[in-house]
């Protein structure tokens, strides 16, 4: 099986946009519980714009597509998630460089760069009940899979699975970053919306890779 191309990256954006649109209300509800309720709407706006941007196929490498996504998310999402996801995609694009295709280790490195970008911007640590709690296990799982010689699609499936588990594992936590941190103990029992959306994004990446 070949490495992931710019078409994979475009498919990722398309599937991510569809998934965010489908789960828009659900993400909004999670955010209403412990934040301000706009997370679904913010991401929907951003991925709709990103999809429009990448659709024409002008970007020839995965890195070029991801860079377009990054700048579009930064310009359209707003809130906390805009700069965080924007930085994630920017760092992912940098990691992808100008390669035409990405193999398993490259995909794992790209996810690690994305996670590092989020941490750099948001200064959250694992366990703070943020999207980092989805990305960190995802990065670890991807690294392990890539080290075991897995194909890119398998690396992403592992990452998505771990992100989903990480998102679920935010429920018992008290938040130390973002709006949910204002709630103290009252945030316990609720899933972090950014972790939930991160799991959706990584699932879309895996699906895009699996379908080719």
């Amino acid at each position, binding site marked *: 099986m070949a490495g992931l191309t710019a078409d994979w990256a475009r498919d990722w954006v398309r599937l991510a946009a569809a998934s965010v649109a489908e789960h828009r209300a659900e993400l*909004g509800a999670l955010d209403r519980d412990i934040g301000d309720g706009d997370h679904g*709407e913010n991401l929907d706006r951003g991925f709709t714009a990103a999809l429009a941007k990448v659709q024409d196929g002008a970007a020839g490498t995965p890195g070029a597509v991801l860079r377009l996504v990054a700048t579009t998310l930064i310009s359209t999402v707003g809130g906390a998630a805009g700069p965080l996801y924007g930085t994630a995609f920017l760092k992912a694009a940098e990691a992808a460089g100008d390669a035409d295709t990405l193999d398993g280790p490259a995909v794992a490195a790209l996810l690690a760069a994305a996670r590092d970008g989020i941490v750099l911007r948001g200064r959250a640590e694992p366990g703070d009940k943020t999207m980092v709690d989805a990305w960190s296990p995802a990065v670890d799982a991807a690294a392990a899979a890539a080290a075991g010689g897995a194909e890119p699609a398998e690396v992403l499936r592992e990452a998505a699975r771990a992100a989903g588990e990480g998102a679920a594992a935010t429920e018992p936590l008290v938040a130390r970053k973002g709006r949910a941190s204002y709630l103290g103990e009252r945030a316990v029992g609720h899933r972090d919306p950014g972790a939930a959306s991160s799991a959706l994004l990584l699932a879309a990446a895996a699906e895009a890779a699996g379908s080719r």
Partner: protein
Amino acid sequence: MKKLLRDPRTLVRDGLDGLAATHPGLLRVEAGPELVVRADAPVRGKVGLVSGGGSGHEPLHTGFVGFGMLDAAVPGPVFTSPTPDPILEATRSVSGGAGVLHIVKNYTGDVLNFEVAADLARAEGIDVETVLVDDDVAVQDSTHTAGRRGVAGTVLVEKIAGAAAERGDDLETVAAIARGIVADVRSMGVALAAPVVPHSGLPSFDLADDEIEIGIGIHGEPGRERIPWEPVDGIVARLLQPIVDDLPFTSLDDVLLLVNGMGGTPLLELSVVLDAANQWLSDRSIHVARTLVGSYATSLDMQGCSITLLRLTDERKALWDAPVETAALRWGR
């Protein structure tokens, strides 16, 4: 949901058009991206002041653009931080060669988007300083958390830093004055009814007919405790005690007292809160040297109020009293 609006999607824009039509000589509203800019910006040689954040807090920040206060305000969607693009554009628009101060309420979204914009502006050669306002004592502060929220104290930072910039102070001085205000200002709020968020049409939290929520923010977040309604003196004590303990404010301090309405509470009730706060403070020999009462940092149509105290110095009094001409605050000209 019943509100006086066209469509939740055009609410912010329609409100800006109304503002622009009301104050043509004072400010202009730009469309792509959306900003409110002082009519005579950039003022050559003056430090430019930019603030912004989610909409729904009017007159904060758009109503404070004008002489002696902000040079530009960047209104995001309702309760959602603006993106870096309009913040950068605002920064460019008000850059008169003496640098630009970003006044940012401490919310992760605002902080991050202003941070990105400041980086981009600096890359273009504009000197940018950032002041984070985090006056809300309802939130536990710690170096490991997002920290306190910025609420109505922001109005005082904007007024006083604005006066310093207007009199010609340089960027470093204006930023230091603003940080001094942040260090000495504390706020806390109460809700009698939650705001109804236009997109969902739902109240952002539910309160029973006899309940109030102490320690609420300005984004429809619930607060830190829910208690049965009680007469105003009790409520005021629950707001002022943590404020005074926190700084702490002590006997013989000169303070500015701001009683701020949340959008759905009329002036008559705010005047009663002011009276109760004056009594509480005078019992503790804290001297109210300046007073502001009105709905300045709101949360859509939330019913309730916040109380803010700022420790005053002679310089702060002079800067507070200095002329200001904006849509929402005006004196001395």
